[in-house]
C-alpha cells in the first residue's frame, strides 16, 4: 500500500517500471528496493526457510538480517531490501 497523503513529506518517485513476482506482473518505481515494491503491492511473504518452511518477510531493511533474501533473475540469496528494482526483473520466492 502506497502512502498517498503526508503532512510533511512529498514523495518524489523515480519512473514507474514493471517486474514479475512469481510470474505475475507488478509495478514499482525505479529508485526503490525490490522489497519496498513488493510490500507496496501487498506482498509480505518473501520466501520460506529451508528446513522448517517457515514464512519469511522483511525485517531490518539494511541488508544485515537475511530475512528478505529472494531469487532475482535466477540469482539466489539476493538481499531485496538493499537491491534496486529494475525494469523486467524476475523476482521469486526461494
Amino acid at each position, binding site marked *: 500500500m502506497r502512502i498517498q497523503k503526508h503532512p510533511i513529506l512529498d514523495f518524489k518517485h523515480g519512473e514507474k517500471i514493471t517486474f514479475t513476482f512469481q510470474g505475475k506482473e507488478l509495478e514499482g518505481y525505479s529508485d526503490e528496493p525490490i522489497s519496498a515494491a513488493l510490500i507496496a503491492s501487498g506482498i*509480505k*511473504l518473501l520466501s520460506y526457510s529451508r528446513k522448517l518452511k517457515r514464512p519469511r518477510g522483511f525485517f531490518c*531493511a539494511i*541488508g544485515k538480517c537475511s530475512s528478505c533474501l529472494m531469487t532475482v533473475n535466477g540469482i539466489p540469496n539476493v538481499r531485496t531490501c538493499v537491491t534496486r528494482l529494475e525494469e523486467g526483473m524476475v523476482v521469486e520466492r526461494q
Partner: protein
Amino acid sequence: MKVYDIVIVGGGPAGLAAALTAASCTASVLLVDDGLQLGGQLIKQTHKFFGSSRQFAGIRGIEIARNFIHEIKKSSNIEVLTQATVTGYYEDGVLTILEGFNGNRLIKVKPKRMIVATGASENMLPFTNNDLPGVYGAGAVQTLMNVYGVAPGKEVLMVGAGNIGLIVAYQLMQANIQVKAIVEAMPSIGGYWVHASKIRRLGVPIYTSCTLKEVRGDEKVEGVTICNIDKDFNFIPQTEKELNVDTVCLAVGLSPLAELLWQADCQMAYISELCGYVPQRDENMKTSNDMIYIAGDVAGIEEASSAMVEGQVAALNAAASLNLYHKEYSQIKQKLKRQLAQLRNNSMCEAITRGVQKATIKKGGDYVYSR
C-alpha cells in the same frame, strides 16, 4: 590497487560529516555505503532536531542529509560508492569491497587511514512467531514509510517506548497508519516526554511493565497477545490482552555493527551504557589500530547529532596523522570537544557520558603541526 588517504565505511551522519571534514583537510576520500543512497538514519528522520543551531536544531534530518550530499557531490576529492559492502580489512592494509548486483564484483583498495562509521542494527526480541512476515524493526518501518512512501501495514503494535519507539509511532500516525498500542517492558517510558505526550494526545495507549508474548497469523501477522510482566520480567498470569494488528514494530534497542573492527583485531570492550561491544578509542576517535578511527553509533549508541560531531573529530585527526592539517586544527578540535560535551550535558545522557569515559583508553595526542 587504488590508494586513498582516508576510506570512510558508512555514509550515515557520521560518515557524511567525516567525508566533508577530510576533504577540507585536502585528503583524498572514498566514501562507501551499502545502501541504495547516502544518508543512513538521516534520510528517514522527519522530526526536527534538538540542540543549538550548530547542531542543526529545528532542521529535519532529511534536510541535513540533502545538504551534506550536495556538498559531497561538489567536492573534487570525495569519491562515493553506494550499494557497496566493505567485507574486510587485512594485515597487508587491503580493504575489500563487494559492489555491483548482489555484490558480484570485488574491489580492493589501500586506505592510508580508515574511519569506520557503520552505525548500528536493531535488536531482536524473543516471542512466539517472531519470524512471521509483518514483524519489522522500527528503523525498517521508518525507511519504508519516510523514504519510499510505502505503508508497512494498517494497524501496528509498537514494542518499546524509548525515543525510537515513540518517534516511529508518531510518524506512523502521520502516515495515517493506526498504532493500536505501545508496550514497554520497563515500568516507565524510556524516551523524551515531549515525544510521549504527542503520542498520548493522539489517543495511543502506552502500557508499561508490559511486553509482547505471542504473535498469531496464517503466514503473516494477524493478531498479538500482550501481557503484563513483574519486576523480574516474568509474565503475570491472567493479564494477557489480545489485539488485532497486521504489523509488529520492534524498537527494543540497537547494537553497534562492529564486525569490521573485530576482524581488524581492534581492542573491544563490552560497555552496557554504549549498548554492546564497542572499540576502545582515544579522544581523537582512534582505535587501538593506528590506521582505524571510528565515529557514530558504532562507537556507542547515541544520536545523529553526536555522530556528526564524532565524524568531524575522526576525520580531522585521521587527516592530521597523515600530516594533512586543517588550517585551524587546534581551534576546531577544541570546538568539537565542547560541542560533544554540550550535547551530552543533560540527565538523559549521563549513562552515555559514563560509557564514553569507560571506552576512552588514553588521552589522544595533539598531532604536532609541523611546517
